[in-house]
C-alpha cells in the first residue's frame, strides 16, 4: 500500500509540472577549501585533522533547478587515516512561485528553536564529525520533497524518504569504564529497504508579521536511534555483550511558534509528542514522550542573546531497579543475575541516549553572539546545563574574516558530566579546541 502511495505522490507531483522552460541559464560554481584541526582531548592530542574541498554547483534554467554540494575530505579522524568523498546534497527539480518539487539528496531542517528542535526528525547527524560549524554534521537523505504555497505566508510541505539513514554516534570510542570491558559494538541493524519502512512527513507552515508557526506530522524510523543487545558470549568467565545501533519507528506530532514582541524580543516555542509502540518492552525503543522548548531572543548591549528552556516528559515511566546479587553458590541464579544485569545496564544506557532517565527532564541553554570591527570579528558562545542529569557544556567560537575570501575560526568545546553519564563518557574524546582556515571562492 505504501509503495502505491509513494509512486502515486511522485507521479502526481510530476504531472503538476507545467513549466515554460524558457529563461536564461544561470550556472554558478562556488564553495570553499579549508584546513581544520580539532584536538586537545584526554584521549587524543589531535582528535580530528582534515583538509576539505567543497564544490557547490547550482544551475537554474527557468523553473528547473539543480543544486549540489560535493565534498572531498582527507585527514586523520580519531587516529584513523581516512579519505572521504561525500555528496552532502545533490538534487534536481522544479520551482515556481506556488509549487516546488525536488528529488535527490537533501537536508531538511524543521523547527524554530536554536539547536534543540523537537520537530526536527528528518535529517540524521554525524555527531563525530568535529569542526568549527555544527551544520557540518548534518547528513542528507535521498528524498522526494514537495512544497505548495496556496497563499502568501502559508506553505504545505511533504517529505517522503524511501531508505532510512541513521545518525552516527561513535560510542565505541569512549572509555566506558567497567562496562566497556565487556561491551562490543556490532554492525548497525538497518531496517529492510522496502517502502513500508520509509519515512513520511508533512508540515503546514505559517508566517505572518504578528506570528509564525507550524504543525507537523512525522512517521518513520527516528534517525536518533537506540541500541540493542544482539548477542552475549558466555564462553569466557565474564560474558561479552555485543550491542548494535538499532532504529525504532515512531509517530511524531509537532508544532512551533515565533512571536515578536515589538522591537524588544522574539518569543519562540516548539514541542512534539513522540508516540512509540513497544509491547515487548524492547530496550532500544523509548517510551512515548513529549519534548518542549521555550525561548527568547533579544539584543542586549549590542549582543544577540538567545535563552532557552528544554524539557521532556516521559509517559509510562518507571525507574529501573538494580538486580539483586544472588547466592554465589548457585550457578543457575548467577547466570540469571548476569542476564538481568546486562539487560539493566543496556536499558539504562538507552535511557541516557533518549534523555529518559527521569520522568521529567529539565535543561537550559544560553547563546550570546556579537560582531565587532565592522563584522570582521564575530564572537559566539553557547552554554548548556541539564538540571536533571547535571551534565553541561560550553562552546566558545571566534571568527575572523581576514578578507572576503579568507576566514579563520578558533574555538573550543568543553563538556562535563558525572560518572556513567553520556557527557562523562564523551568528554574524554570530544573536549578540545579547534582552529580552521577557510578560503571561500
Amino acid at each position, binding site marked *: 500500500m505504501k509503495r502505491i502511495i509513494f509512486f502515486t505522490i511522485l507521479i502526481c507531483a510530476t504531472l503538476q509540472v507545467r513549466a515554460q522552460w524558457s529563461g536564461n541559464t544561470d550556472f554558478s560554481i562556488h564553495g570553499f577549501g579549508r584546513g581544520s584541526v580539532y584536538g586537545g582531548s584526554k584521549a587524543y592530542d589531535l582528535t580530528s585533522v582534515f583538509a576539505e574541498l567543497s564544490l557547490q554547483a547550482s544551475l537554474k534554467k527557468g523553473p528547473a533547478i539543480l543544486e549540489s554540494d560535493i565534498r572531498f575530505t582527507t585527514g586523520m579522524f580519531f587516529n584513523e587515516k581516512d579519505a572521504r568523498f561525500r555528496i552532502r546534497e545533490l538534487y534536481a527539480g522544479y520551482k515556481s512561485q506556488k509549487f516546488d518539487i525536488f528529488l535527490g539528496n537533501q537536508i531538511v531542517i524543521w523547527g524554530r528553536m536554536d539547536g534543540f528542535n523537537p520537530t526536527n526528525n528528518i535529517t540524521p547527524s554525524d555527531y563525530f564529525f568535529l569542526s568549527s560549524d555544527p551544520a557540518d554534521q548534518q547528513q542528507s537523505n535521498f528524498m522526494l520533497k514537495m512544497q505548495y504555497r496556496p497563499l502568501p505566508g502559508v506553505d504545505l510541505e511533504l517529505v517522503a524518504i524511501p531508505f532510512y539513514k541513521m545518525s552516527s554516534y561513535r560510542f565505541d570510542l569512549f572509555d566506558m569504564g567497567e562496562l566497556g570491558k565487556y561491551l562490543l559494538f556490532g554492525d548497525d541493524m538497518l531496517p529492510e529497504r522496502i517502502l513500508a519502512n520509509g519515512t513520511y512527513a508533512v508540515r503546514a507552515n505559517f508566517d505572518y508579521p504578528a506570528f509564525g508557526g507550524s504543525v507537523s506530522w512525522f512517521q518513520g524510523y527516528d534517525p536518533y536511534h537506540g541500541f540493542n543487545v544482539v548477542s552475549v558470549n558466555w564462553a569466557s568467565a565474564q560474558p561479552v555483550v555485543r550491542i548494535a545501533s538499532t532504529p525504532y519507528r515512531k509517530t511524531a506530532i509537532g508544532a512551533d511558534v515565533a512571536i*515578536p514582541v515589538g522591537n524588544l524580543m522574539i518569543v519562540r516555542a516548539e514541542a512534539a509528542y513522540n508516540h512509540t509502540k513497544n509491547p515487548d518492552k524492547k530496550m532500544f525503543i523509548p517510551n512515548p514522550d513529549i519534548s518542549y522548548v521555550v525561548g527568547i531572543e533579544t539584543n542586549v548591549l549590542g549582543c*544577540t542573546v538567545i535563552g532557552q528552556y528544554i524539557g521532556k516528559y516521559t509517559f509510562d515511566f518507571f525507574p529501573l531497579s538494580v538486580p539483586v546479587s544472588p547466592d554465589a553458590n548457585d550457578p543457575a541464579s548467577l547466570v540469571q543475575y548476569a542476564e538481568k544485569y546486562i539487560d539493566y545496564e543496556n536499558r539504562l544506557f538507552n535511557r541516557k541516549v533518549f534523555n529518559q532517565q527521569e520522568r521529567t527532564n529539565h535543561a537550559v541553554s544560553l547563546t550570546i553572539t556579537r560582531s565587532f570591527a*565592522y563584522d570582521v570579528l564575530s564572537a559566539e558562545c553557547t552554554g548548556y546545563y541539564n538540571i536533571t542529569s547535571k551534565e553541561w557544556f560550553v562552546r566558545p567560537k571566534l571568527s575572523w574574516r581576514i578578507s572576503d*575570501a579568507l576566514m579563520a575560526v578558533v574555538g573550543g568545546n568543553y563538556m562535563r558530566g558525572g560518572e556513567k553519564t553520556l557527557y562523562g563518557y564523551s568528554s574524554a574524546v570530544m573536549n578540545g579546541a579547534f582552529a580552521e582556515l577557510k578560503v571561500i571562492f
Partner: protein
Amino acid sequence: MKLLLKSLVTGLFLFFCANGLFGQSAAEISRKSREVIDLGSTQMDFTIYIRDNKGNERVRQLTMISAVFNDVGKTLVRFTAPSDVQGTTLLIYDNKDKEDDMWIYMPSLKKVRRIISSERGKSFMGSEFTNADMSKPNQADFNYSLLGTTIYDGKECWMVQSEGKDQTISKANGYSKSVSYIDKNSYLCYKVEYYDLSGNLHRILTSHDYKNVTKSTFFSYRTVMENVQNKRISEMVVNKVETQTKSGEEMFSPNALQ
C-alpha cells in the same frame, strides 16, 4: 549577519537625506523631496565597496526587489557576493506606524528565521552606512530647523538640521544630529553630515549621478559615505535598476525565501 537587520529600504539612497526635512519651513521641502524619490516597484542590483584607511577593499553585491502592497513597503534583498553569504536573503516589511517585520533565510541554516528589527545605529554589511541610513526615518522622532543656505558643488542648497528628540532616539539611530544639503531647484539632496553622540562630525554622505527614473523622479546611482574619524570610505554603486516591475505579493512572503 545581525548587523544587516535593520537595513532595507523603501527607496534606498535618498532616505539618507529625508531626515533633515521636517521642520516648520522644511515641511514643503520635505514633501517635494519625497515626491522626487518615489520609485514604486523596483528591482536593482548594486555593489558596496568598503575601503579601510590602508586601502584594503571588500566588496558586497546584492539584488533588491521592492514593492508596496496595502500601504506596506515590502523589500527582498538577496546577497550575491561574496560567496560565503551568497543566497542569504532578507525580507523586510516597512511598516509606517510600528516596527518593521523582518525575516532572514541563511542557506547554511536551511530555514527561514524571524528576526528583531532593532539596532538602527549599527553598520550595514560592515560598511560606513548604518542600518538607520537605509531605512525611512520616523519623522516624529526628530526636531528640524533650517540653518540657512549655502553653495554646494555649484548648487544653491538649503541646510536643514535634524536632531533626535531625546537621547534614546539619538542613540538608537547612532547620531546626535545631521545637516542635509538640499538643492533649491531640484529638491535633491547632495550631502549629509552626521554628528556622533558627543557632537563631533563623524560621517559625510555625498550623492552622485542622479538620473531620471520618470519625468519627475530621480535616483542617485552612486552614494559615498566617508567616516572622517577613522578615514574609512564606503561606496554604493547601482549597477542596474528596473522600475515599475510587476512583482507579485507571493514573492514577498517569508516562505518564498528559500
